[in-house]
């Protein structure tokens, strides 16, 4: 039975079969909501208690009561904007329904040419490709009756061996750099809020399989050689594949950036993917001199749902330096052009697992 099973069991479900199984599982589990009546009574009693001074569960003063939540969000957005020191100069986006704008096509093609010419840095036996991502993410933490928000700097470092089937190493952690958006660190600590994350354990895994369930042959988020080998070599057909896999629009850019950021794509594949993006409708050069950690790059963005997703290319190397999300004019009253999320990626070749690049 062993051999037959091994050869035969790996049946792959279609999208429909998965959806049916999910719905089936939902319907299989019967639930009883009679307990909700009592829950509602308790809630309304608690809410009415809050309305009367002195009985409230929360000791909020008038100031807290009048605080406008929008202001908090604006403060978060402004704080991220302050991190991107160069600021953002939003330009009108000229939508084209068939491809990226001429400006974007030019930037992509020229970056692709540079990438293809530059080739890949050689990683000799025993050496490692080092990929580090710095990202500022908003974190909200709560104590009993208050919540606090801050921008938290995270660093994710990955060491990839010359032979990608060998042992990889990943370290992830907070740098301790924080920018407080709502409340202060002292207030949060006094209220008993948890600020530090539980430290992430160092991860080691053969072939980069850090999480259980990583796709066997890779995907856009983990572009293994066999995945890359299966992609079309023609840029237009590659775009079509990207569109289908991602769902299209802004997601196409997110998926392309996911793949480019890993450090797993050889120069030729990067160049083809950049050329494929010239077919992405609505993609435009949104900032000709975007500043990421003091390095200037060209931002290419696509707007959707009130927010613009950008990738930032280093014109000197054709590599993706980072990503940003930038608010669009329609987004919750946040000024157009405000940076609301930010990450940058650097790569290097190092001499040992866990070794940092020397600069």
């Amino acid at each position, binding site marked *: 039975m062993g051999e037959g099973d091994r050869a035969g069991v790996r049946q792959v479900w279609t999208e429909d079969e998965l*959806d049916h*199984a999910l719905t089936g599982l*939902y319907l299989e589990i019967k*639930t009883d909501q009679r307990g909700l009546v009592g829950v509602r009574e308790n*809630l309304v009693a608690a809410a009415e208690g809050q309305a009367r001074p002195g009985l409230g569960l929360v000791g909020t003063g008038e100031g807290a009561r009048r605080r406008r939540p929008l202001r*908090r969000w604006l403060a978060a957005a402004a704080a991220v904007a302050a991190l991107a020191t160069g600021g953002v100069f939003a330009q009108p986006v000229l939508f084209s329904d068939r491809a990226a704008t001429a400006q974007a096509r030019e930037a992509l093609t020229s970056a692709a040419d540079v990438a293809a010419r530059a080739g890949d840095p050689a990683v000799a036996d025993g050496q490692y490709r080092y990929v580090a991502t710095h990202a500022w993410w908003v974190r909200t933490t709560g104590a009993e009756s208050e919540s606090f928000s801050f921008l938290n700097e995270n660093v994710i470092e990955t060491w990839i061996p010359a032979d990608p089937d060998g042992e990889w190493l990943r370290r992830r952690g907070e740098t301790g750099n924080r920018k407080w958006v709502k409340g202060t660190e002292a207030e949060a600590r006094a209220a008993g809020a948890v600020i530090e994350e539980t430290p992430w354990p160092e991860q080691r895994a053969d072939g980069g399989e850090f999480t259980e369930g990583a796709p066997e042959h890779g995907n856009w*988020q983990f572009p293994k050689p066999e995945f890359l080998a299966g992609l079309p070599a023609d840029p237009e057909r590659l775009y079509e594949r990207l569109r289908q896999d991602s769902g299209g629009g802004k997601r196409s850019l997110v998926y392309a950036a996911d793949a480019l950021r890993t450090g797993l794509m050889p120069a030729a594949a990067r160049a083809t993917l950049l050329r494929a993006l010239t077919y992405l409708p609505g993609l435009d050069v949104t900032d000709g001199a975007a500043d990421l950690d003091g390095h200037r790059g060209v931002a290419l963005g696509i707007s959707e749902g009130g927010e613009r997703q950008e990738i930032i290319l280093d014109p000197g190397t054709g590599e993706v330096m980072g990503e940003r999300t930038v608010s669009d004019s329609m987004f919750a009253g946040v000024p157009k052009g405000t940076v609301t999320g930010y990450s940058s990626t650097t790569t290097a070749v190092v001499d040992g697992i866990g070794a940092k690049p020397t600069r």
Partner: protein
Amino acid sequence: MTASAAGPGPGPPHGEEPDLSGPDPGSVFGRLFDDHAGSLHAYLARRVGDQTADDLVSETFLVALQQRHTYDAARAGARPWLYGIASNLLRRHVRQEVRGWRARARVVGSDRAQAESPEVRTTERITAQQRVRQLAGALAALEPGDRDVLLLTSWGHLSSTEVAQALGIPVGTVYSRLHRVRRWLQSHSSVATGGAEDGDG
């Protein structure tokens, strides 16, 4: 039971989001509860059972009440806000949930198939029930964050943007997690329940 009779519907339509900081929290939260508690409870009960779901719904609305001044209707609807609070609270019950999925992988389908009349016990139906059982086993193997994204989408009927708001993660992360986890389930659901299959004989 009325809410579950309505099935896994998308919840109340998004119109005016409530002003939760108003002067009459009793009636505001009463309405908020009427609008959302049924579907939230159904979602939670399917993950951790009725009793824990009762507690979680209660805690979710009490946290919401305490944090109502920080609720920002301009940023997120009430629904993703509540599901986000509930998702945080649910993390305390991960082990219980995983045990539940493992147990379900062994029993779902087999007993229900018995209960059906012979006419409907077609091969197709049994195959579908096997898939449901296999899926339960595979859900046990997911990382909690991946399970949240999948089930908030599939069972909670939240859009990707709402899932992002609920979990406090970028929407791109929702897209890629959802994509990754669906792909993995499509190819690994049968493999992941291998042990359960053997156990059943």
